[in-house]
Every structure is written in C-alpha cells, then in structure tokens.
C-alpha cells in the first residue's frame, strides 16, 4: 500500500504536536489574574471586540489568488507532460494553446492591476 507511510506520518505529526500542547498545559503553573487574562494592547484596556470589519482589499486579493492558483493547477500537469516532446505530436498545437491560456490570464491580470486591486495606500 503506497499511501501507508503518508498516513502514518500524518498521524505521528498530529500526535507529536498534540502531546507538546498537552504537556505544556499540564506542567506549567496556573495563576489567573484578571489583568493577565486581558488581551495585550500596549497597556490600554481593550475597547470593543477585535472582530470587526476589515479592509476590502484583503477580500479582493483572496479572489485574485484563487484565479491564479487554479491556473497553476492547470499548468502543472502540462509542464510535466510537455517535457516529453513527442507527447503532443509534431505540430506545436498544445504549446500555442498554453500561450493562449496564459495571455487570457495576463489580460485579466492587467485589468485587475489597472483597477487598483494591488494598491495599498
């Protein structure tokens, strides 16, 4: 079973991290005071909850990331297959297709750039 080492390692990594967490909780001292349990905001008493609305730029960036990440996922299999020249036949059709794919992507990239998605001022 080829996947066995991976599964074993996943389990071990999880257990090691969990045991570190648990040991530290058990061994360390526990002396609660009211001030100690407050969030540290440079000595000021915190005003409001910290979970408030934040800048839309982060959201736009996440969407842009999604587009590019999916694009990368398409390119990986192509890159591995294109190493073998004979795989796609003698005419460079697949190469030009990938060029077309990339240029569509670049078009969208330029559009978002001009729209100011990457502006952080």
């Amino acid at each position, binding site marked *: *079973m*080829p*996947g*066995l*080492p*991976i599964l*074993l*390692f996943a389990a*071990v*990594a*999880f257990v*090691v*991290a969990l045991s*570190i*967490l648990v*040991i*530290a*909780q058990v061994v*360390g*001292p*526990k*002396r609660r005071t009211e001030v*100690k*349990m*407050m*969030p*540290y*905001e*440079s000595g000021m008493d*915190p005003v409001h*909850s*910290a*979970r408030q609305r*934040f800048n839309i730029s*982060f959201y736009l*960036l*996440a969407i842009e*990331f999604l587009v*590019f*990440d999916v694009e*990368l996922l398409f*390119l*990986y299999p192509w*890159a*591995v297959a*294109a*190493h*073998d*020249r004979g795989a796609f036949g003698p005419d*460079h059709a697949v*190469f030009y297709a*990938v*060029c077309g794919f*990339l240029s569509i992507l*670049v078009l969208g*990239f330029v559009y978002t*750039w001009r729209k100011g998605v*990457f502006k*952080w*001022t």
Partner: protein
Amino acid sequence: MAEWIEPLIKIALVVGASQAAVAYLVLVERKAAAYLQDRFGPNRVGPWGLLQPLADGLKFILKEEIIPDGADRILFLVAPLSILASATFVFATIPFGYVVPWPGSEPIALTIAPNIDIGVLFVFAVGSLGVYGVILGGWASNNKYSLLGGLRSSAQLVSYEIPLGLSVIGVLLFSGSLKMETIMTAQAASGWWWVAIQPLGFVVFMVSGCAEAARLPFDLPECEQELVGGYHTEYTGMKFGMFAFAEYLHMITVAFLAVILFFGGWHFWGLAPYTEANEVGFIGAVVRVVVLNVKVLLMIFFFMWIRWSWPRFRYDQLMDLAWKTMIPLGLVNLVICAFCQEFLAQDDYVTRAVLGWLAVAGCFAWAAASVSSKPVRTVAVRPS
C-alpha cells in the same frame, strides 16, 4: 509487518532530527547574528552556549499557558497545533539523500513516502496549510494586533504562493516529473544545475520562499515595532514555541526545496557524480547524503545572512513586490522555459542558459530604465 517498520523508523528519525535541528539552528542563528554584529552571542549555558537550546526548551515548557478571557478557546488551541503538524508533515516527500543499498534486503529510499509521484505539489499543498494556523491564531485571540497581524500575514503568504508555484514550473518542464528524486537525477544526468539555466526562476523562487517562511526582510506577520507580535501576540510559553518552531521548519523546507530543485540535490562534480545505472554502493550513497545536507546547511546559512543584513519592507512595498514584480518575472521565466523545451534540442543546455541569463539582463535593463524615468525626489534642507 516489514512495511510498517521501515516507514516508522524513518518517521522517528525525521521527527527527532527535525526537532534537534531546529533547536540547534536557533543557536547557530544567534551565534551568526552575534558574529555579524560583532558580539559574542549566547555563551553562558554550557561550553560555547551549547546547552542553550535545552534551557530554552525547558523554559518554554515551564511557563504559564494563558488563554485570554475573550478568546475562542478551541480555535486558540487548534492554531498552533495545525501549524506545527503541517510544518512537520511536509517532510513526507522530501528526500534526504538517494537510495541506500542495504545488505540482505531491498535498497532503502531516504524518503518517508518514496512511492508518491507528486512530491513538489504535496510540499506546496501541505506547506500552505500553515496559513490556516496563522489566520485562526490571529482571529481567535480577540486582540486587534493579532487580527491585523493574521490578516496581513495570510495576505502575504497567499500572495507569494503564486510566484513560488510559477517559478517551479520551469523546473518541471526541464525535469519532466514532480518527484524530487527524478528532478535531482535529471540535473545530475545533464551535468547542469537548473540554477545556471533558469537564474530568473531561482531568484523568484528564493524571494518568494523567503516570504513564505516569513524570514526577516519579509517578517511583516510579526514585526515587533508595529504589531507587538502579530498573530501570536497572545500566545505564551510552549504555544508560542510551536509557532516559532513551525516557522523554522518552513525555512528548512524552503532550503531543501531550493537545493533539490535548483542546486542539483546530491550531485557534485567529481565527488558525487552521475552514473548511468545510478548504483553507487554504500559509500557512494553516504557521500550523496552528505553532499545534499551540506548544501542545505549552506542554504540555511544564506537565509540567516540575509536576515541579519536587510531591513524590513513596508507592507505596500511587500505586496507590490509580489504582484507587480515577482508574478510578471515568474511568467517571463515560464514562457522562456516553455519556448526552450518546445523548440530547442533536448540536450542543448548552452542555448537555454544563454537565454536564461539574457532574460536576467533584460530585467536589469528594464528596472534601470523604470528607475531613471521616475522623477528624482529632492529633500529640502533647512538652512542652519
């Protein structure tokens, strides 16, 4: 039975070695920093401070573990757990050498999961799970600094993932596999390390790898002067230690990837050469392990060197570097590599290298032109 024992031994070795390596690399980093800044560095605990990592670990464990009152208790604990587990799990497909022949049994591959064909993709997939730990930790703390730090660093990690992935596609094109053993063998067989052929890809990889590991010029997630501690402001004791630990593991991973993808892995001319059948005997296999790991240590030292020589970026500069510089450069590298692979002879590495370095020269020319076309900023000097 045997199919359980072999991976378990390897896992124990990797987990133990990675923990010890991180502990002592922290000491090495502090010594290197001291050397670069003309100080002594840690020298009180044991000879040359050699017991310092032990003292640090004990102190981490013996400190009080605080969970602030407003925090989401479960997510607060899940964050360091997930970040450390994923940072360790990455090592499943990273080879620490080449196949070692073993008397009386099958040769042993120095990878935990040698049969997985998607090595590089696996490392990226699992490595990027660390983003969850960062954003969970930032959100669960109920601290404004933490939330800002978590948002910033998740945006940073997500942004640099794209150039990282783009820069690797050139390597895949030339090697024809996602498996790291095959990538190293391809470089050894050609006699060229890919860094000599795709310098542009290497630069993009190195910069975004540095940012993924949140090392100093890119340590915006936790810039002390602006955000106290960023996403781990509220974490104390061992939970903070787990974040720091995971960050170090990320750096080691990036160093391994850089060596394997761009610096030929175990290959070194004369010392660990390529042989047709790739059977080198026990001594040869050990030499390959040593060569690979020495390269990795040199790469880690290079990271430390960068850290102590460079000032931190501003946040908008950081994002500009990712989206407006690194992604276009990565695309240029990709197009050049695809062109070479499609139209040049399979073993024509000289032309590929010439094209690769021409691309670097072109980038320099473009950068120089764009800098000189900007208006020069003048600073008014107050008359004294």
